[in-house]
Protein backbone atom coordinates (compact mmCIF):
# COMPACT_ATOMS: atom_id res chain seq x y z
CA UNK A 1 0.00 0.00 0.00
CA UNK A 2 1.26 3.42 -0.92
CA UNK A 3 1.53 6.09 1.75
CA UNK A 4 2.30 9.78 1.66
CA UNK A 5 5.08 10.86 4.04
CA UNK A 6 7.98 13.26 3.77
CA UNK A 7 11.48 11.90 3.15
CA UNK A 8 12.62 12.46 6.72
CA UNK A 9 9.68 10.47 8.09
CA UNK A 10 10.17 7.72 5.51
CA UNK A 11 13.80 7.39 6.55
CA UNK A 12 12.84 7.21 10.22
CA UNK A 13 10.23 4.50 9.62
CA UNK A 14 12.60 2.52 7.38
CA UNK A 15 15.24 2.55 10.13
CA UNK A 16 12.69 1.13 12.56
CA UNK A 17 11.82 -1.55 9.97
CA UNK A 18 15.56 -2.31 9.86
CA UNK A 19 15.62 -2.85 13.61
CA UNK A 20 17.00 0.49 14.75
CA UNK A 21 16.10 0.82 18.42
CA UNK A 22 18.22 3.75 19.51
CA UNK A 23 18.07 7.25 18.14
CA UNK A 24 19.76 10.36 19.49
CA UNK A 25 19.80 13.71 17.74
CA UNK A 26 19.73 17.45 18.08
CA UNK A 27 17.31 19.60 16.04
CA UNK A 28 18.33 21.34 12.84
CA UNK A 29 16.43 22.26 9.68
CA UNK A 30 15.81 20.64 7.17
CA UNK A 31 15.77 17.26 8.95
CA UNK A 32 13.59 18.03 12.00
CA UNK A 33 10.75 15.76 10.88
CA UNK A 34 13.10 12.82 11.45
CA UNK A 35 13.69 13.26 15.20
CA UNK A 36 10.08 14.43 15.60
CA UNK A 37 8.87 11.16 14.06
CA UNK A 38 11.32 9.14 16.15
CA UNK A 39 10.20 10.80 19.37
CA UNK A 40 6.70 9.44 18.75
CA UNK A 41 7.59 6.13 17.14
CA UNK A 42 10.53 4.82 19.22
CA UNK A 43 8.54 4.37 22.45
CA UNK A 44 5.90 2.45 20.43
CA UNK A 45 8.45 -0.17 19.34
CA UNK A 46 10.27 -0.37 22.68
CA UNK A 47 13.20 1.70 21.46
CA UNK A 48 14.92 4.73 22.90
CA UNK A 49 14.65 8.29 21.61
CA UNK A 50 16.86 10.95 23.11
CA UNK A 51 16.94 14.60 22.22
CA UNK A 52 20.55 15.17 23.15
CA UNK A 53 21.98 18.41 24.50
CA UNK A 54 24.21 18.74 21.44
CA UNK A 55 25.31 17.00 18.26
CA UNK A 56 28.45 15.81 20.02
CA UNK A 57 26.44 14.22 22.77
CA UNK A 58 24.15 12.56 20.21
CA UNK A 59 26.92 10.87 18.23
CA UNK A 60 28.57 9.66 21.44
CA UNK A 61 25.26 8.27 22.70
CA UNK A 62 25.09 6.35 19.42
CA UNK A 63 28.63 5.13 20.15
CA UNK A 64 27.45 3.82 23.53
CA UNK A 65 24.35 2.12 22.16
CA UNK A 66 26.35 0.54 19.36
CA UNK A 67 28.95 -1.05 21.63
CA UNK A 68 26.09 -2.57 23.55
CA UNK A 69 24.97 -4.20 20.27
CA UNK A 70 21.90 -2.08 19.53
CA UNK A 71 21.21 -0.81 16.03
CA UNK A 72 21.67 2.93 16.48
CA UNK A 73 21.25 6.05 14.37
CA UNK A 74 21.71 9.79 14.55
CA UNK A 75 20.74 12.43 12.01
CA UNK A 76 21.50 16.06 11.34
CA UNK A 77 22.18 18.55 8.59
CA UNK A 78 25.48 19.98 7.42
CA UNK A 79 26.69 22.19 10.34
CA UNK A 80 25.52 19.53 12.79
CA UNK A 81 27.29 16.79 10.84
CA UNK A 82 30.52 18.77 11.08
CA UNK A 83 30.17 18.61 14.86
CA UNK A 84 29.76 14.83 14.74
CA UNK A 85 33.00 14.17 12.86
CA UNK A 86 35.09 13.39 15.92
CA UNK A 87 32.55 10.78 16.97
CA UNK A 88 32.52 9.23 13.51
CA UNK A 89 36.30 8.89 13.59
CA UNK A 90 36.02 7.13 16.97
CA UNK A 91 33.31 4.81 15.61
CA UNK A 92 35.59 3.91 12.71
CA UNK A 93 38.58 3.42 15.02
CA UNK A 94 36.61 1.20 17.40
CA UNK A 95 34.97 -0.60 14.48
CA UNK A 96 31.47 0.13 15.68
CA UNK A 97 28.44 -0.01 13.41
CA UNK A 98 26.27 3.11 13.24
CA UNK A 99 24.09 4.94 10.75
CA UNK A 100 24.47 8.69 10.35
CA UNK A 101 22.02 10.71 8.26
CA UNK A 102 22.98 14.01 6.65
CA UNK A 103 20.19 15.98 4.98
CA UNK A 104 22.54 18.51 3.43
CA UNK A 105 21.92 22.26 3.50
CA UNK A 106 23.91 25.20 2.19
CA UNK A 107 27.36 25.95 3.62
CA UNK A 108 30.05 26.79 4.57
CA UNK A 109 29.52 27.96 8.13
CA UNK A 110 25.94 28.18 9.31
CA UNK A 111 25.06 28.70 5.63
CA UNK A 112 21.34 28.53 4.99
CA UNK A 113 18.58 25.93 5.13
CA UNK A 114 18.21 25.41 1.38
CA UNK A 115 19.03 22.03 -0.20
CA UNK A 116 22.64 21.46 -1.19
CA UNK A 117 25.16 18.75 -2.06
CA UNK A 118 28.24 20.53 -0.83
CA UNK A 119 29.18 18.04 1.91
CA UNK A 120 30.39 15.47 -0.64
CA UNK A 121 34.04 16.01 0.24
CA UNK A 122 33.35 15.73 3.95
CA UNK A 123 31.27 12.58 3.54
CA UNK A 124 33.51 10.69 1.13
CA UNK A 125 36.94 11.82 2.35
CA UNK A 126 36.20 11.59 6.04
CA UNK A 127 35.59 14.78 7.99
CA UNK A 128 37.24 13.30 11.05
CA UNK A 129 40.89 12.46 11.60
CA UNK A 130 42.73 9.28 10.77
CA UNK A 131 42.96 6.69 8.00
CA UNK A 132 39.33 5.71 7.88
CA UNK A 133 36.52 5.44 5.39
CA UNK A 134 32.80 5.51 5.84
CA UNK A 135 30.31 3.96 3.47
CA UNK A 136 28.18 6.73 1.90
CA UNK A 137 24.82 5.98 0.26
CA UNK A 138 22.88 8.54 -1.77
CA UNK A 139 19.19 7.81 -2.37
CA UNK A 140 17.39 9.62 -5.20
CA UNK A 141 13.77 8.91 -4.32
CA UNK A 142 11.68 8.25 -1.24
CA UNK A 143 11.33 4.62 -2.29
CA UNK A 144 15.08 4.33 -2.50
CA UNK A 145 15.37 5.89 0.97
CA UNK A 146 13.42 2.87 2.26
CA UNK A 147 15.72 0.39 0.56
CA UNK A 148 19.03 2.11 1.30
CA UNK A 149 18.19 2.83 4.94
CA UNK A 150 17.60 -0.85 5.62
CA UNK A 151 20.70 -1.76 3.60
CA UNK A 152 22.81 0.72 5.56
CA UNK A 153 22.07 -0.97 8.90
CA UNK A 154 22.98 -4.36 7.43
CA UNK A 155 26.22 -2.97 5.98
CA UNK A 156 27.13 -1.25 9.24
CA UNK A 157 26.75 -4.52 11.16
CA UNK A 158 28.41 -6.72 8.56
CA UNK A 159 31.53 -4.55 8.32
CA UNK A 160 31.41 -3.01 11.79
CA UNK A 161 31.70 0.45 10.34
CA UNK A 162 29.82 3.75 10.27
CA UNK A 163 27.53 4.27 7.26
CA UNK A 164 26.27 7.66 6.15
CA UNK A 165 23.03 8.25 4.27
CA UNK A 166 23.56 11.43 2.29
CA UNK A 167 20.40 13.28 1.29
CA UNK A 168 19.51 16.94 0.96
CA UNK A 169 16.80 19.36 2.00
CA UNK A 170 14.62 18.43 -0.95
CA UNK A 171 14.70 14.67 -0.29
CA UNK A 172 14.05 15.28 3.40
CA UNK A 173 11.15 17.69 2.94
CA UNK A 174 9.36 16.38 -0.11
CA UNK A 175 6.56 13.83 -0.24
CA UNK A 176 5.91 11.33 -2.96
CA UNK A 177 4.04 8.03 -2.83
CA UNK A 178 6.10 5.32 -1.19
CA UNK A 179 5.60 1.68 -0.22
CA UNK A 180 6.96 0.78 3.21
CA UNK A 181 7.79 -2.84 2.53
CA UNK A 182 10.27 -4.58 4.83
CA UNK A 183 10.73 -7.28 2.18
CA UNK A 184 12.31 -4.72 -0.15
CA UNK A 185 15.62 -4.96 1.73
CA UNK A 186 18.48 -5.93 -0.51
CA UNK A 187 20.60 -7.65 2.10
CA UNK A 188 20.21 -10.14 4.90
CA UNK A 189 19.84 -8.84 8.44
CA UNK A 190 20.77 -10.66 11.62
CA UNK A 191 24.48 -10.97 12.27
CA UNK A 192 25.61 -12.41 15.58
CA UNK A 193 27.61 -9.77 17.41
CA UNK A 194 30.28 -11.58 19.40
CA UNK A 195 32.15 -8.41 20.27
CA UNK A 196 29.60 -6.36 22.21
CA UNK A 197 29.94 -5.20 25.81
CA UNK A 198 27.04 -6.84 27.62
CA UNK A 199 28.59 -7.90 30.90
CA UNK A 200 31.41 -10.45 31.12
CA UNK A 201 29.86 -12.89 33.57
CA UNK A 202 31.03 -16.40 32.58
CA UNK A 203 33.24 -15.14 29.79
CA UNK A 204 36.51 -13.26 29.28
CA UNK A 205 36.14 -9.47 29.34
CA UNK A 206 36.20 -7.57 26.06
CA UNK A 207 37.69 -4.20 25.31
CA UNK A 208 36.54 -1.68 22.72
CA UNK A 209 38.93 1.23 22.26
CA UNK A 210 40.65 3.37 19.69
CA UNK A 211 43.80 4.18 21.66
CA UNK A 212 46.72 1.92 20.70
CA UNK A 213 50.08 2.89 22.18
CA UNK A 214 51.92 -0.42 21.84
CA UNK A 215 54.66 -0.86 19.26
CA UNK A 216 53.04 -1.45 15.82
CA UNK A 217 49.55 -1.90 17.34
CA UNK A 218 47.93 1.01 15.57
CA UNK A 219 49.56 0.20 12.26
CA UNK A 220 48.14 -3.32 12.48
CA UNK A 221 44.68 -1.87 13.13
CA UNK A 222 45.03 0.41 10.12
CA UNK A 223 46.15 -2.47 7.92
CA UNK A 224 43.12 -4.45 9.01
CA UNK A 225 40.85 -1.48 8.34
CA UNK A 226 42.32 -1.06 4.86
CA UNK A 227 41.66 -4.73 4.08
CA UNK A 228 38.08 -4.22 5.22
CA UNK A 229 37.70 -1.09 3.07
CA UNK A 230 39.07 -2.95 0.04
CA UNK A 231 36.52 -5.70 0.58
CA UNK A 232 33.72 -3.11 0.88
CA UNK A 233 34.90 -1.46 -2.35
CA UNK A 234 34.86 -4.80 -4.14
CA UNK A 235 31.50 -5.97 -2.90
CA UNK A 236 29.33 -2.99 -2.07
CA UNK A 237 29.78 -0.49 -4.89
CA UNK A 238 26.44 0.49 -6.36
CA UNK A 239 25.45 2.56 -9.34
CA UNK A 240 22.88 2.84 -12.10
CA UNK A 241 23.76 3.38 -15.77
CA UNK A 242 21.34 4.73 -18.38
CA UNK A 243 22.19 4.26 -22.08
CA UNK A 244 25.76 3.20 -21.38
CA UNK A 245 26.32 1.47 -24.70
CA UNK A 246 25.84 4.15 -27.34
CA UNK A 247 26.23 7.52 -25.63
CA UNK A 248 28.55 10.31 -26.75
CA UNK A 249 28.21 12.19 -23.47
CA UNK A 250 27.52 10.75 -20.05
CA UNK A 251 25.92 12.89 -17.35
CA UNK A 252 27.07 12.00 -13.84
CA UNK A 253 24.79 13.00 -10.97
CA UNK A 254 23.59 11.60 -7.65
CA UNK A 255 20.60 12.09 -5.34
CA UNK A 256 18.27 14.97 -6.17
CA UNK A 257 20.45 16.10 -9.08
CA UNK A 258 20.13 12.68 -10.70
CA UNK A 259 16.34 13.11 -10.78
CA UNK A 260 16.67 16.32 -12.77
CA UNK A 261 19.43 14.84 -14.96
CA UNK A 262 17.36 11.75 -15.74
CA UNK A 263 14.60 13.93 -17.21
CA UNK A 264 17.17 15.77 -19.33
CA UNK A 265 18.59 12.48 -20.62
CA UNK A 266 15.18 10.99 -21.42
CA UNK A 267 14.11 14.21 -23.16
CA UNK A 268 17.22 14.35 -25.33
CA UNK A 269 17.00 10.63 -26.14
CA UNK A 270 13.52 11.27 -27.58
CA UNK A 271 15.20 13.79 -29.90
CA UNK A 272 17.70 11.13 -30.94
CA UNK A 273 20.62 12.65 -29.05
CA UNK A 274 23.09 10.11 -27.74
CA UNK A 275 23.22 11.14 -24.10
CA UNK A 276 23.43 8.78 -21.15
CA UNK A 277 23.79 8.91 -17.39
CA UNK A 278 25.74 7.36 -14.54
CA UNK A 279 24.17 7.65 -11.13
CA UNK A 280 26.46 6.68 -8.26
CA UNK A 281 24.33 5.18 -5.49
CA UNK A 282 27.29 4.49 -3.21
CA UNK A 283 29.48 7.63 -3.17
CA UNK A 284 32.07 5.73 -1.20
CA UNK A 285 32.90 3.23 -2.53
CA UNK A 286 32.70 5.19 -5.77
CA UNK A 287 31.74 3.31 -8.97
CA UNK A 288 35.18 3.57 -10.55
CA UNK A 289 34.90 0.33 -12.53
CA UNK A 290 31.69 1.45 -14.18
CA UNK A 291 33.27 4.80 -15.03
CA UNK A 292 36.32 3.14 -16.53
CA UNK A 293 34.12 0.95 -18.73
CA UNK A 294 32.14 4.02 -19.84
CA UNK A 295 35.32 5.98 -20.58
CA UNK A 296 36.24 3.36 -23.22
CA UNK A 297 32.99 4.07 -25.03
CA UNK A 298 32.05 7.74 -24.62
CA UNK A 299 33.68 11.04 -25.64
CA UNK A 300 32.93 13.30 -22.72
CA UNK A 301 31.47 13.52 -19.26
CA UNK A 302 29.35 16.22 -17.66
CA UNK A 303 29.09 16.20 -13.87
CA UNK A 304 26.12 18.03 -12.37
CA UNK A 305 26.02 18.84 -8.66
CA UNK A 306 24.41 21.21 -6.19
CA UNK A 307 27.91 22.32 -5.24
CA UNK A 308 30.83 24.18 -6.74
CA UNK A 309 32.34 20.90 -7.95
CA UNK A 310 33.22 18.07 -5.58
CA UNK A 311 32.21 14.70 -7.04
CA UNK A 312 33.72 15.90 -10.32
CA UNK A 313 37.14 15.05 -8.82
CA UNK A 314 36.14 11.42 -8.29
CA UNK A 315 34.91 11.21 -11.88
CA UNK A 316 38.28 12.45 -13.14
CA UNK A 317 40.07 9.95 -10.90
CA UNK A 318 37.71 7.17 -11.97
CA UNK A 319 38.45 7.61 -15.65
CA UNK A 320 42.11 8.47 -14.95
CA UNK A 321 41.55 11.76 -16.81
CA UNK A 322 41.32 9.90 -20.13
CA UNK A 323 38.36 11.97 -21.35
CA UNK A 324 37.33 15.60 -20.89
CA UNK A 325 35.19 16.07 -17.79
CA UNK A 326 32.92 19.13 -17.74
CA UNK A 327 31.12 20.47 -14.72
CA UNK A 328 27.91 22.35 -14.07
CA UNK A 329 26.82 23.19 -10.58
CA UNK A 330 25.08 25.68 -8.37
CA UNK A 331 25.60 26.23 -4.71
CA UNK A 332 24.20 27.92 -1.63
CA UNK A 333 20.59 27.00 -2.39
CA UNK A 334 20.68 27.12 -6.20
CA UNK A 335 19.10 24.09 -7.88
CA UNK A 336 20.28 23.43 -11.46
CA UNK A 337 17.19 23.24 -13.68
CA UNK A 338 16.54 20.96 -16.64
CA UNK A 339 16.93 23.96 -18.97
CA UNK A 340 20.28 24.91 -17.52
CA UNK A 341 21.65 21.37 -17.75
CA UNK A 342 20.27 21.04 -21.29
CA UNK A 343 21.99 24.27 -22.34
CA UNK A 344 25.29 23.14 -20.85
CA UNK A 345 24.96 19.74 -22.48
CA UNK A 346 24.16 21.11 -25.93
CA UNK A 347 27.20 23.41 -25.84
CA UNK A 348 29.42 20.43 -25.09
CA UNK A 349 27.52 18.20 -27.51
CA UNK A 350 27.80 20.50 -30.52
CA UNK A 351 31.49 21.12 -29.87
CA UNK A 352 32.06 17.35 -30.04
CA UNK A 353 30.42 16.97 -33.47
CA UNK A 354 32.88 16.54 -36.36
Amino acid at each position, binding site marked *: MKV*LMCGNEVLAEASIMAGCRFYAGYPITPQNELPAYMSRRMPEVGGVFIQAESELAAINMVFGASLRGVRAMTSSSSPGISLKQEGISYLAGCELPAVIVNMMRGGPGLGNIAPSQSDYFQATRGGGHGDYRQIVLAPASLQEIVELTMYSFDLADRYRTPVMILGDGILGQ*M*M*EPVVLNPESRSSKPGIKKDWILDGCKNRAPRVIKSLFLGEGELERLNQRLQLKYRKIAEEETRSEVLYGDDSTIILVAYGTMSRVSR*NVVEGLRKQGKKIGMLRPISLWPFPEKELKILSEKVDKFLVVEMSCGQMVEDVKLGIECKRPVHFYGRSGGG*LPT*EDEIMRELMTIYSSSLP
Partner: protein
Amino acid sequence: MREDIVFAGFGGQGIMFMGKALSYAAMKKGLFLTWMPSYGAEVRGGTAHSMVIISDSLIASPVVKEPTICAAMNNPSFQKFEAKVKPNGLLIVNRSLVESEPTRKDIDVMEIPATDMAFRLGDPRIANMVVLGALLAKKTILPVESLIDSMKDIIPEGRRGMLSINEEAIKQGYGYGSR
Protein backbone atom coordinates in the same frame (compact mmCIF):
# COMPACT_ATOMS: atom_id res chain seq x y z
CA MET B 1 -1.02 15.70 -18.17
CA ARG B 2 1.11 17.70 -15.81
CA GLU B 3 0.16 20.51 -13.46
CA ASP B 4 2.61 22.51 -11.33
CA ILE B 5 0.61 23.92 -8.46
CA VAL B 6 1.38 26.47 -5.74
CA PHE B 7 -0.89 27.00 -2.74
CA ALA B 8 0.00 30.18 -0.91
CA GLY B 9 -1.37 32.02 2.11
CA PHE B 10 -0.56 32.71 5.73
CA GLY B 11 0.02 30.30 8.58
CA GLY B 12 -3.24 28.82 9.84
CA GLN B 13 -5.03 28.84 6.49
CA GLY B 14 -4.23 25.18 5.94
CA ILE B 15 -1.85 25.85 3.08
CA MET B 16 0.23 22.70 3.68
CA PHE B 17 -2.90 20.66 4.25
CA MET B 18 -4.60 21.63 0.98
CA GLY B 19 -1.49 20.48 -0.86
CA LYS B 20 -1.48 17.21 1.03
CA ALA B 21 -5.19 16.63 0.45
CA LEU B 22 -4.86 17.04 -3.31
CA SER B 23 -1.67 14.94 -3.32
CA TYR B 24 -3.34 12.14 -1.43
CA ALA B 25 -6.29 12.08 -3.84
CA ALA B 26 -3.84 12.00 -6.76
CA MET B 27 -1.95 9.11 -5.17
CA LYS B 28 -5.21 7.17 -4.82
CA LYS B 29 -5.77 7.74 -8.54
CA GLY B 30 -2.37 6.20 -9.29
CA LEU B 31 -0.85 9.43 -10.58
CA PHE B 32 2.75 10.56 -10.08
CA LEU B 33 3.02 13.41 -7.63
CA THR B 34 5.38 15.33 -5.40
CA TRP B 35 4.63 17.68 -2.52
CA MET B 36 7.11 20.14 -1.16
CA PRO B 37 6.65 22.76 1.57
CA SER B 38 8.25 26.16 1.74
CA TYR B 39 10.37 25.57 4.81
CA GLY B 40 12.30 28.81 4.76
CA ALA B 41 12.54 31.47 7.43
CA GLU B 42 8.93 32.51 6.97
CA VAL B 43 7.64 35.52 8.88
CA ARG B 44 4.42 35.68 10.85
CA GLY B 45 1.67 37.26 8.77
CA GLY B 46 3.65 36.67 5.60
CA THR B 47 3.32 33.86 3.15
CA ALA B 48 3.84 30.15 3.42
CA HIS B 49 3.36 27.94 0.42
CA SER B 50 3.25 24.33 -0.62
CA MET B 51 4.18 23.09 -4.08
CA VAL B 52 2.42 20.13 -5.66
CA ILE B 53 3.24 18.55 -9.00
CA ILE B 54 0.77 16.03 -10.42
CA SER B 55 1.68 14.21 -13.59
CA ASP B 56 1.12 11.03 -15.53
CA SER B 57 4.87 10.52 -15.85
CA LEU B 58 7.90 10.50 -13.51
CA ILE B 59 8.60 13.84 -11.79
CA ALA B 60 12.19 15.05 -11.50
CA SER B 61 12.39 18.01 -9.17
CA PRO B 62 9.54 18.77 -6.75
CA VAL B 63 10.33 22.48 -6.86
CA VAL B 64 7.78 24.60 -8.74
CA LYS B 65 9.31 27.66 -10.38
CA GLU B 66 6.48 28.59 -12.75
CA PRO B 67 3.10 27.33 -11.55
CA THR B 68 0.44 26.36 -14.07
CA ILE B 69 -2.06 26.72 -11.20
CA CYS B 70 -1.69 29.04 -8.23
CA ALA B 71 -4.11 29.66 -5.39
CA ALA B 72 -3.46 32.94 -3.58
CA MET B 73 -5.23 32.79 -0.24
CA ASN B 74 -4.16 36.21 1.06
CA ASN B 75 -2.84 39.54 -0.24
CA PRO B 76 0.92 39.05 0.33
CA SER B 77 0.86 35.73 -1.48
CA PHE B 78 -1.11 37.27 -4.34
CA GLN B 79 1.55 39.92 -4.68
CA LYS B 80 4.32 37.35 -4.48
CA PHE B 81 2.95 34.84 -6.95
CA GLU B 82 0.84 36.69 -9.56
CA ALA B 83 3.91 37.41 -11.68
CA LYS B 84 5.17 33.83 -11.43
CA VAL B 85 2.15 32.07 -12.94
CA LYS B 86 2.93 30.50 -16.30
CA PRO B 87 1.27 32.22 -19.30
CA ASN B 88 -2.17 30.66 -19.91
CA GLY B 89 -2.04 29.33 -16.36
CA LEU B 90 -4.76 29.62 -13.74
CA LEU B 91 -4.64 32.01 -10.79
CA ILE B 92 -7.28 31.47 -8.12
CA VAL B 93 -7.76 34.56 -5.98
CA ASN B 94 -9.36 34.45 -2.54
CA ARG B 95 -11.36 37.64 -3.05
CA SER B 96 -12.33 37.78 0.65
CA LEU B 97 -8.76 38.58 1.68
CA VAL B 98 -6.96 39.76 -1.46
CA GLU B 99 -7.37 43.51 -1.90
CA SER B 100 -5.14 43.91 -4.94
CA GLU B 101 -6.51 43.69 -8.45
CA PRO B 102 -5.02 41.23 -10.92
CA THR B 103 -2.84 42.87 -13.57
CA ARG B 104 -1.94 39.90 -15.75
CA LYS B 105 -3.89 39.59 -19.01
CA ASP B 106 -2.18 36.42 -20.24
CA ILE B 107 -3.52 34.14 -17.51
CA ASP B 108 -6.90 32.85 -16.44
CA VAL B 109 -8.00 34.47 -13.17
CA MET B 110 -10.76 32.99 -11.04
CA GLU B 111 -11.92 35.10 -8.13
CA ILE B 112 -13.75 33.41 -5.31
CA PRO B 113 -14.87 34.79 -1.91
CA ALA B 114 -13.55 31.64 -0.25
CA THR B 115 -13.18 32.91 3.31
CA ASP B 116 -16.69 34.47 3.25
CA MET B 117 -18.12 31.21 1.94
CA ALA B 118 -16.26 29.33 4.67
CA PHE B 119 -17.62 31.75 7.31
CA ARG B 120 -21.13 31.00 6.16
CA LEU B 121 -20.38 27.30 6.49
CA GLY B 122 -19.36 27.95 10.09
CA ASP B 123 -15.55 27.96 10.02
CA PRO B 124 -13.26 30.40 8.19
CA ARG B 125 -10.44 27.83 8.31
CA ILE B 126 -12.28 25.78 5.73
CA ALA B 127 -11.61 28.33 2.95
CA ASN B 128 -8.78 26.09 1.73
CA MET B 129 -11.22 23.30 0.88
CA VAL B 130 -13.57 25.75 -0.87
CA VAL B 131 -10.66 26.73 -3.12
CA LEU B 132 -9.67 23.11 -3.76
CA GLY B 133 -13.23 22.38 -4.87
CA ALA B 134 -13.18 25.39 -7.20
CA LEU B 135 -9.81 24.30 -8.59
CA LEU B 136 -11.14 20.86 -9.52
CA ALA B 137 -14.11 22.47 -11.25
CA LYS B 138 -11.75 24.46 -13.47
CA LYS B 139 -9.08 21.80 -14.03
CA THR B 140 -9.86 18.16 -14.55
CA ILE B 141 -6.83 16.79 -12.73
CA LEU B 142 -9.03 14.28 -10.94
CA PRO B 143 -12.74 13.93 -10.15
CA VAL B 144 -13.94 16.01 -7.19
CA GLU B 145 -15.45 12.83 -5.72
CA SER B 146 -12.01 11.32 -5.26
CA LEU B 147 -10.93 14.34 -3.23
CA ILE B 148 -14.06 14.04 -1.08
CA ASP B 149 -13.38 10.31 -0.66
CA SER B 150 -9.82 11.01 0.41
CA MET B 151 -10.83 13.32 3.23
CA LYS B 152 -11.79 10.47 5.56
CA ASP B 153 -8.27 9.05 5.23
CA ILE B 154 -6.37 12.27 5.84
CA ILE B 155 -8.38 13.95 8.56
CA PRO B 156 -6.95 12.60 11.83
CA GLU B 157 -9.22 10.44 13.96
CA GLY B 158 -9.67 13.06 16.65
CA ARG B 159 -11.10 15.49 14.12
CA ARG B 160 -13.59 13.28 12.33
CA GLY B 161 -16.23 15.82 13.30
CA MET B 162 -14.74 18.09 10.65
CA LEU B 163 -15.43 15.61 7.86
CA SER B 164 -18.88 16.84 6.85
CA ILE B 165 -17.97 20.54 6.85
CA ASN B 166 -14.90 19.75 4.71
CA GLU B 167 -17.06 17.85 2.26
CA GLU B 168 -19.59 20.68 2.12
CA ALA B 169 -16.82 23.22 1.56
CA ILE B 170 -15.39 21.22 -1.35
CA LYS B 171 -18.87 20.91 -2.90
CA GLN B 172 -19.64 24.62 -2.58
CA GLY B 173 -16.27 25.53 -4.06
CA TYR B 174 -16.84 23.08 -6.88
CA GLY B 175 -20.27 24.58 -7.51
CA TYR B 176 -18.81 28.11 -7.55
CA GLY B 177 -16.04 27.08 -9.91
CA SER B 178 -18.46 25.36 -12.27
CA ARG B 179 -20.52 28.53 -12.85
